[in-house]
């Protein structure tokens, strides 16, 4: 497992937050996923060793929490809220819009590798429904026009790379 020195420093620091090392499981997985983009197989044994656990103890956590991924995703992650308040305000149509814009379907990486569009459960911003998270950023009251703007910006940023 080759992690950047700064990630390793953060990992060693976060372990000190807890009286029992095992508690650092989720923080470690978050840090690894932030650097690698997903949780590769070797990370499971690496985390187990780091925390003095068996790989199964890590594996069961990775497979339990929806945010931990076992495969890479697109360079950008579009998460559309699926739950009731957003659906009442058009969340399903917004998700379809993104699927069309990037020629993909829910859960899959777009053919150009640029985005993964996904439905997620409640993002706790029901008052400004429908909401969409692009990577770490929340977009509120996303109607068709706003979804178009978001998609255009992602495409423009991709061209600049």
């Amino acid at each position, binding site marked *: 497992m080759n992690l950047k020195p700064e990630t390793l420093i953060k990992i060693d620091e976060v372990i000190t937050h807890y009286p029992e090392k095992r508690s650092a499981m989720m923080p470690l997985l978050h840090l690894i996923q932030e650097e690698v983009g997903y949780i590769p197989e070797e990370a499971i044994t690496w985390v187990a060793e780091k925390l003095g656990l068996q790989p199964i103890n890590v594996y069961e956590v990775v497979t339990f929490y929806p945010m931990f991924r076992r495969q890479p995703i697109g360079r950008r992650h579009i998460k559309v809220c699926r739950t*009731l308040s957003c659906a009442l305000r058009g969340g399903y149509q917004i998700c379809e819009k993104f699927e069309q814009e990037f020629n993909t379907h829910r859960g899959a990486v777009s053919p150009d590798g640029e985005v993964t569009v996904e439905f997620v459960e409640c993002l*706790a*911003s029901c*008052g400004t*429904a429908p909401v969409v998270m692009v990577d770490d950023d929340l977009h509120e009251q996303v109607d068709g026009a706003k979804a178009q703007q978001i998609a255009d910006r992602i495409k423009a940023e991709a061209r600049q790379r």
Partner: protein
Amino acid sequence: MPAPEQRRIIFKHIDESGYSNDLACYLKHGGYEVLKQAVTRPPQALIDEVKRSGLRGRGGAGFPCGVKWGLVDRRSGKPIYLIVNADESEPGTFKDRYLIHQDPHQLIEGTMISCFANNVTQAYIYIRGEFPHGARILGKAIAEARAANFVGPNILGTGYSCEIHIHRGAGAYICGEETGLIESLEGKRAYPRIKPPYFPAVLGLYQCPTIVNNVETLCHVKHIAEIGGEAFARIGTANNTGTRIFCVSGHVQRPGCYEFPTGTITMGQLLNEVCGGPLPGRKFKAVIPGGSSAKVLRFGERFKGRRKVGADLVDFDWGVEDLPMDFDSLALIGTMGGSGGVIVMDDSVNMVEALANINAFYAHESCGQCTPCREGSLWMKKLTTRMVHGPARAEDAALLKDVADQIPGRTICAFGEACAWPTQSFLAKFGDEFKNHHETKQVPKPTATAALV
């Protein structure tokens, strides 16, 4: 009767222009003065203030905060932990998001006062994974508070020390259940623990006494320490003290968070006056009053009975619009105030589709530990999804009820109730729509209707 004025205590600075989430701004508005006062008092005096205040937990169950603190095992000699439940995940609830992003120091001050009162030396803020910016903002705020000696070793020269660390979740709803949250914080799957012991206050994190409180609850503690428990108890109504933040979403003109003295506003005032009523040309059809697991109410139904007002028993005859928005009144009519998330549906909504949406949520979020919940939530989802996207049958309503009725009371945690109540209440209140769905679904819908599943 016109709606009462909002009384913004917890939300005082939310969306205030010029108010920022840094320490300098918080101090300018009198921040941490209450903590400075609190650490000069005996800890038990602070616990007594909270008991006198009658503060009830704002996470969903409405359990009295002072009682929860009173259950803490203080004789075991083990460290006492405090966990801030910032895993806001009940659909329809979105108050903590604003408190964390816009006023993190209010939460930290409330947390530190609660820690001091309970002799806690290590607190964790369990924040849901979907708030990455919120976690960063809290991290920065804690660092600022630590630099100013409000958090960390020897706080304000008193000899009392307490650390706060942030722990990020990873998208699992069940982490809002306090024993599931504790398991998660221990680095495991968030499987809720078997009860007894009933309260983490006895055996919680690392088998030590642990207090788990909601973000809003801890913010209230700051104000209780400031004005005193008795003054706080005078806000709101008896047994439903202080203010309550209602998060209104769905089909209203002005969705959002609104803070009122508890029990002083009715559902009708909240939805029609505060939130501007239904969308143009539409009528209210149904409302879920306390987060998506609370039982749904149908506009037009009436609730009759007797209730206690002070020492007297009085008759009540309420429509949905007349319902006082407090824990006890909502419990009285068979639903709950829960987390304060009010989800409104108008006459464009097909209730089978709405239930299919809710069922998909609960099937996705069941932790899988108990068979009735794991299988039941999945079958309720499969049934309602099939009714919408495949063939619907008149007998589906009875089948759904049969599945739902076998879940509550047969699971380790309250998720069993949470996932069954929507199906049970939708069937009880809108049974005809379920029985007739095979016919109504043949009628084409206006193109503007939002798909729900």
